[in-house]
């Protein structure tokens, strides 16, 4: 573990640089299933470059939060990424209980996006904000059930310890880990506003959530928001990958390749989910999130009663 810091740094920079690839991969997968050619893989990079050159137009009713919200969201998300173990190496910032900080950094990020959406004064964005707040409150229950399971499973209170602690030996009984990964996948789809919960393709529909909230951004602000959401996708993908793939089986740089490849694979999975199912009605979203919670609790039961299975 003495060379863990450079590996972490390389992985962290890779996450920052490669994150805009994920929406490109998802769109490519969706285009493949639809039989189309689809946008280029590097489309978001070009979009970001174009948006950075444009000026920002701020709504005249705004009280100022709209102006600072994108910067705050970007900063908080990067901070959260710093707490996550990357490439199966512990984060240098880890401390006991940092999971709470990790999820509440993301929560504060969401708080600011909701606040900024209300700040625009548009009732349409207020609607999106209300939905975002409602669904993420339900998702949080599932997140904390997953966290409780991870604490039970790894006997560690740090995020890095939890995620890298799931080693090869824990695969002797993989059912609870699989259940929790499924729950986390549902949370990932909900938090990133992907298909069963929200359709990122729709831009002017009454049913949308995330896209409704970012209608008023323009220029570099919109670029920051788009980049933040792709980084968030990377964070959740990386979370699931480090939960599923046992670390400590390969040497340093192979692990790096494995984790980055795993995140790309999770993007492909999201693309497959998006092309194979339709967005759920609002009424059906709460049961889905509750079943994510229940999955995590079932995994916890497995862990509590059988110490992870029959040994």
């Amino acid at each position, binding site marked *: 573990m003495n060379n863990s810091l450079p590996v972490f740094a390389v992985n962290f920079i890779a996450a920052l640089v490669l994150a805009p690839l994920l929406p490109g991969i998802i769109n490519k997968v969706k285009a493949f299933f639809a039989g189309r050619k689809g946008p280029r893989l590097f489309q978001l990079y070009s979009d970001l470059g174009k948006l950075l050159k444009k000026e920002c137009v701020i709504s005249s009713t705004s009280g100022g939060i709209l102006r600072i919200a994108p910067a705050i969201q970007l900063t908080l998300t990067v901070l959260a990424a710093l707490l996550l173990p990357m490439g199966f190496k512990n984060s240098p910032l880890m401390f006991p209980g940092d999971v709470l900080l990790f999820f509440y950094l993301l929560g504060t990020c969401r708080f600011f996006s909701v606040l900024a959406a209300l700040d625009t004064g548009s009732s349409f964005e207020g609607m999106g904000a209300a939905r975002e707040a409602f669904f993420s409150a339900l998702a949080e229950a599932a997140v904390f059930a997953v966290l409780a399971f991870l604490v039970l499973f790894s006997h560690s209170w740090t995020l890095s310890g939890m995620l890298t602690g799931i080693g090869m030996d824990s695969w002797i009984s993989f059912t609870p880990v699989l259940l929790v990964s499924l729950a986390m996948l549902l949370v990932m789809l909900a938090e990133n506003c992907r298909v069963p919960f929200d359709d990122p393709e729709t831009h002017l529909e009454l049913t949308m959530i995330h896209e409704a909230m970012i209608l008023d951004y323009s220029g570099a602000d919109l670029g920051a928001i788009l980049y933040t959401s792709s980084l968030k996708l990377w964070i959740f993908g990386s979370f699931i990958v480090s939960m599923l793939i046992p670390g400590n089986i390969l040497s340093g740089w192979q692990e790096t390749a494995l984790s980055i490849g795993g995140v790309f694979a999770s993007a492909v999975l999201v693309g497959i989910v998006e092309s194979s199912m339709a967005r759920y009605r609002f009424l059906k979203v709460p049961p*889905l999130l*509750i*079943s994510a919670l229940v999955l995590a609790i079932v995994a916890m039961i497995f862990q509590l009663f059988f110490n992870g299975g029959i040994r």
Partner: protein
Amino acid sequence: MNQMNELFLGIFLCSCLMLAVSSRLLHCIRIVALQGVLLGIMPVTLAIGHGDIHWSVMIINLSLKGIILPCLLYRTMLKAGVKRELEPVIGYSLSAGVVLALILFSFFISGRLSLPAGASDLAGLAVPCSFAVVMTGLFTVIARKKALTQVIGFLVFENGITLFGAAVMREHPLIVELGILLDVLVLVFIMGISVFQISREFSHIDADRLNSLKEEAR
């Protein structure tokens, strides 16, 4: 093989949850079929490393519970012209919570049971899982209105009993198994016919509305 069985039991618990939250009847039928297929495979995976494999049980379970009964249910669904359970007695979110409570309860009570000496080493996990499946089936019978969903609940209940038998008593006699299966087959046949009759007579298959027929007629 224990990991395999453990995974199957995990899938069983998940299927109970899916049954609680799904409103489409086709979905429910698919879940019952999945449980039937798992019940067909489990006698084999349970017996690996323990000697003789009950191929007959596997084939009968797989064909009857995995294929024939779901097909019958599907046919009844098409004939009755119902696609989904619109107004359940207990809502879907609450149902998920209730099923979770039932799972917890079954883990709790089976922790206090003393298992027979001949039970397999998997029984510690299989007993609570089968209890959970049984209770989910009964809960489905109570919490849903459509007669077809109630039949599905009964089938899930029966799957739980079979799971209990398969996992705990490896040497249970074939004749008992066949008796249970025959009962269920006959029940599904009768219910299939009566559901069709109900829907033709009253243009709905809500079982709870049948209670008040007499008063309305007066």
